[in-house]
């Protein structure tokens, strides 16, 4: 009888261990993605500036207004980048 009780206790602790582990594993993706979040925000910023500058460069080439659109759209791209970062971090906060 005592032997059986020991078995049951062992099984109980095993189950508790495992359930704790699974709970930890389930909460992993959201807590672990801070690294992904940092990359997300920085690439958002860079991409907007890059795309806007590219559009500016080709607009200038087409309309022969060098360097007006490049400069104008570069700053507009920076504005967009900051807006994107704010939006993304808002979305992350909501989660």
């Amino acid at each position: 009888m005592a032997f059986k009780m020991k078995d049951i206790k062992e099984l109980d602790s095993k189950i508790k261990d495992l359930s704790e582990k699974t709970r930890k594993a389930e909460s992993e993706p959201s807590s672990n993605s801070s690294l992904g979040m940092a990359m997300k925000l920085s690439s958002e910023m860079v991409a907007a500036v890059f795309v806007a500058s590219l559009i500016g460069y080709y607009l200038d080439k087409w309309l022969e207004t060098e360097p007006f659109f490049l400069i104008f759209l570069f700053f507009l791209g920076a504005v967009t980048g900051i807006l994107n970062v704010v939006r993304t971090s808002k979305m992350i906060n909501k989660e």
Partner: protein
Amino acid sequence: MAANPMSQFEVYSIGPKIQIGSFDLSFTNSSLFMVLTVTVISLFFIVATQKKSLVPNKMQLIAEMAFEFVSKMISETAGKDARPYFPFILSLFLFVLVANLLGMLPYSFTVTSHIIVTFALAFFIFIGVTAVGFAKHGISYLKLFVPSGVPIFLLPLIIVIEVISYLSRPVSLSVRLFANMMAGHTMLKVFGGFVVSLGILGGWLPLGFAVALTGLELLVAFIQAYVFAILTCIYLNDALNLHH
């Protein structure tokens, strides 16, 4: 041994040279690993779903987990309307994930460490999402660029900003994946080089770093695949439920 940490990203053709017009369509190591990725995924799912039991074995369990993971992700971020796009998101997620993980094997090639591969993926997502948006909402999809409650004299500026923001989506999506994979693999190679050059006396410290970085890279491989898929869901959500 190649000492240059960037030489692992070299693309070279294997097999005969195929030239159509001005395009070099030879089969490269990059194509080989893409084929390998698709083969691994297909084989895994074929084997895992062979014996469909109510109490799943290990492989079936992993397959079901992948299925449920993506299904949950879609319903949480894009809602019910996005159900028809489940096969696409699942394939996308698995392709990026398995390509990243295959790249972690020694002597292998990481498909996703090339901007052209990730940009091609992101660009087709961008085109597809835009097409879905126009198909669903018609011309009123353009309302996405006009946020409500903006004073009329600011509108031209805001529209330009919104358009830039929309166009920068594929760039940020692809740059993120490519930069993560390339930076990680370069770092691994650099630390590996340190181990060799410092030899048996001083090589233990960088070896420890390399081991830790390998673990980190596995995590990054998963996170980046997850981020890639979830952002596709978010873009799809914008296109399906127009509430900007």
